[in-house]
């Protein structure tokens, strides 16, 4: 394995990195490649799900892939913008926020999810759902006035951005005026959890995440009811920095779209069906929402 050729390549690459550091204008070919993902559930679990993907990437890209732990969506955004994260799994909104600040950031793939209670088979979209516990008796949006609401992360598409824009527009007042306490739980998992525990009366969550929580048995579909459903939202994109060398970008793109078993494994882990190529066009609508004044 330690052939002189490979050693040469490695030397050349390290040289390239140091050159890249020395001259910021040139394209970047980072080694290791720094990967991060927005918090969805606990980090260890998320990493475990993505490990086949990372393994596949390491092999396909011929370099190590390190993982940057994100405290929030913001960590990923700032990391991409600061150049400390090269590749990331993001939400449509967080992608759009980053894209607004650095147009070179590119969404290149997304996926279709396996069908579930709330996600349609093969759909390229999901929804933000306003849910309550069925036993709470809160069976209409009107009844939720003054009630406590759980959002996810300020940068979460279905857990904060869409509700704050679309739902607010619908009810005519900002969320914090319509509801009582409005709290950010940090993740979809946690939003469902605090709803289940009764800490809050309602929560906005992503339909695909709700499906997952149901699949895991942490709540039954019969225990909750959906009072509101957003317009379709495109699925989460994988993005990379625009400063990455085009060759690397290409390799990454191809690695995702390959039919390798690791990719399949990872998709299965994530209850996804397959990767599909996307472009920035797919998320433009959201960028419009985010550009609106609050």
């Amino acid at each position, binding site marked *: 394995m330690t052939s002189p050729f490979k050693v040469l390549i490695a030397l050349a690459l390290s040289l390239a990195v140091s050159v890249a550091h020395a001259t910021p204008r040139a394209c970047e070919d980072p080694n290791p490649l720094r990967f991060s993902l927005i918090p969805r559930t606990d980090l260890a679990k998320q990493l475990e799900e993505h490990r086949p993907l990372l393994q596949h990437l390491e092999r396909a890209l011929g370099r190590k892939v390190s993982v940057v732990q994100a405290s*929030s969506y913001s960590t990923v955004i700032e990391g991409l913008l600061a150049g400390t994260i090269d590749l990331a799994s993001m939400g449509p909104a967080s992608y759009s926020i980053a894209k607004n600040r650095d147009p070179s950031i590119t969404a290149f793939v997304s996926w279709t999810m396996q069908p579930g209670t709330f996600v349609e088979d093969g759909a390229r979209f999901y929804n933000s759902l306003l849910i309550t516990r069925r036993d709470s008796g809160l069976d209409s949006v009107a009844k939720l006035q003054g009630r*406590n609401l759980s959002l996810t992360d300020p940068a979460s598409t279905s857990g904060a951005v869409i509700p704050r824009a679309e739902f607010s527009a619908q009810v005519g007042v900002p969320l914090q005026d319509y509801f009582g306490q409005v709290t950010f739980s940090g993740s979809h998992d946690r939003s469902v959890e605090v709803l289940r525990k009764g800490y809050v009366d309602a929560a906005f969550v992503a339909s695909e995440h709700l499906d997952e929580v149901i699949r895991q048995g942490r709540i039954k579909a019969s225990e909750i009811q959906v009072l509101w459903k957003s317009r379709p939202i495109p699925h989460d994109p994988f993005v990379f920095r625009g400063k990455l060398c085009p060759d690397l970008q290409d390799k990454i793109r191809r690695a995702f779209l390959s039919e390798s078993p690791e990719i399949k494994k990872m998709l299965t882990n994530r209850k996804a069906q397959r990767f599909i190529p996307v472009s920035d066009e797919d998320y433009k609508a959201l960028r419009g929402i985010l550009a609106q004044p609050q």
Partner: protein
Amino acid sequence: MPILSNNKLTRLLHALTQNNWLRLNASLVMISALLLLAIWTTTLQRSRQEEALVIANARTTQLNLAIIVSENLRQVLDRGNLYALVAAEWMNSHSRSSEVRMSTMLAGDRAYNRMVIHDPQGKQLYASSPATRNPAMQAALDRFIADSRGPAPPSLRVARISESFGETWHLPILLRLPYHEGALEGVLELTLDLGYLLRLYQDIDIGRTGIIQILTADGEEIIRGRRGGLEIGSQDSMASALTAIKERQGSLEGVLFGDNRPNEISFQRLDSHPLTVAVSQEREDLLAAFKARKARHLTTISILTVIVVGLTVWGVLMIRRQRLNFEAIARSEEEKRALIDQLEEEKRRAYELASHDHLTGLVNRRMFMELGASHLARARRSRQHYALMFVDLDRFKAINDSLGHRVGDLLLQLVGQRLRQSLRASDVIGRFGGDEFVVLLTGLEQETDVVEIANNLVENITRPCTNLDGHDVQVGLSIGVALYPRDGQDLDTLIRHADAAMYQSKKVSRGTFTFFDPALNVNKAHEFDLEQRLPKAIAEDELILHYQPKVDLQNFRVVGFEALVRWQHPEHGLIFPGDFIPMAEGTGQIVSLGNWVLEAACRQLAAWQNEGLPLVPVAVNLSARQLRETALAARILNKLAEYGLKPSLLQVEVTESSLVENIEIAGGILDDLVKAGISVALDDFGNGFSSLGYIKTLPIDTIKIDRTFVRDIINSPDDAIIVESTIILAHNLGMHVIAEGIETRDQLMHLKTAGCDEVQGYYFSRPIPAAEASGMLLQPTRTPT
């Protein structure tokens, strides 16, 4: 007994006066009230303590949490100083390596995710990521720069969070560059990712209303964490609650959001940074469990209170009822008591009336019978003598008729007085009505005392009675005497016999007394008269024989008679042998008298024999004079033969003295008689000087124990021993023993036990005329009663 216990009850009831009842009630109420007071005081006090404890515990927990959060916050903020050092270095060099270092630090930092370096004018020199500055942030930066040039330059300031989507969780922190003292070189702007803080504390459950706040030094809220996560919303100020407090840490009660809900707030100020961490919970929430418990306790003791009050009321009612009952009982007891007293008084008076003669004040018949009976019951165990006297005034009716009832009554009263004066207090004196008085003489030492007492009575009562309603009167009286137990063992018999004797007395001569037992009456006929008259009496058959049966103690059958002579004097009535035998002995007429007796006895035996009656031997007494006649035995035998009687049908009784006078002749006579089959009995044994040893030389086969021994056999151990040993000795000598003078059942039983063969006495029968004796032959069994 019930009356006695009722008395006790009454006393008890009286003791329970109104006051005591009230005191009882008051005590009950007081005890209940104290009990309730104690229960309520304890419960409320404990409740207060528990509440204080809940709050104290909550404050401790809050404060601990505040300390941990503030310490964590301090560490995060201190890290900002590191960035400031690197930024200062970059300011000096603007080198690529400084940039790389800053970028690397930021990439590995989970708390900070962005850094911007400004020059002293607020112009951006470096940013880790591109962004458009919002106006609020710019204003904060300008203010910080201005303040940094002021007299008290801040080293660190936390700016406001932007509300734009991407920056909601961006907490901007401004630091002065360089960190060390000196002129302002620049300002470092760091962005703290609140997601970092959320992830640290998201699993801490501080309850429904629990809040963790990070506040500026002015008490302005920066962020607010709840159980559900980080809260966005109105930025209420805690200034009012906390600015006044200068302590580093502490707890207080305050209202947080203008919702008038009191909160328990604990806070901790950071030492090195102008921040405060506050942890608060609504008191309602903290105390919910406690209040539920308290409500349960209060409910319980409320129920308890109702029960106690109910029981007390019940108790008071019960006491009241008891009191009414007791009072009713007491009243009824008093009424009963009064009734009983009244009844007793009436009974006493009735008894007085019923038992006493109103005229004389003596006891009446009924009372007399009662007292007499009790005396007689005592008499049975006594050696003393008792006598019953029947006293009747002579010619009282005439006095009554001629002088009037008034005088009669006065006379009776006087007689009553005199009777009382003449007799001892222990004697019982009664008036049976009319002029009949009855006296029971008690505890006399000897029988002869009766004579003296009777004489005394006659003398006293027959004294003249002066001025009875203006009349002087003198009455005679007749007294009949019956002796106990000789004349009767019970009061009725004694009275009957005394009455009979009284009539005898009246008949013979008024103004004297007569014994029922004729043998005791001293005949007042002159001995001279009798002496003259006796031969004629013998010749003209004025004498008669009475027969007293002898009863065998084995089968209580009559086994013989003793023939006793009586003189039916035409003037003096029945004269007993005591009155004429000694005289006859003195004049020698005893021989003809004895012959007459022998003749009469044989004649009677022959008569019974002819009638075909079952015969028993008849005993005749032989006098000393008779026993001098050598031919006596032959004459007796001839007489028997003359009447065709077997010799065994005759018995002779001799006295010891009659033998002593001429022992040779008498012994010969007796020998002859015994040989012929006539049995010989020694009469009055025990009175003389003879001993059995002497007697055994004589042909005597029967001994008759004198009545004087028999009389006291019950009460005198000496007499009893004499009688018993006599019987034993006599039996040892082969003799028969007869006891005389049996008057009571006790005597009878004693003698039977001692082994006596036969008895003779009033107990079975007094001497009776021949006609009655024949009846006894037909029905010989005398069952003791």
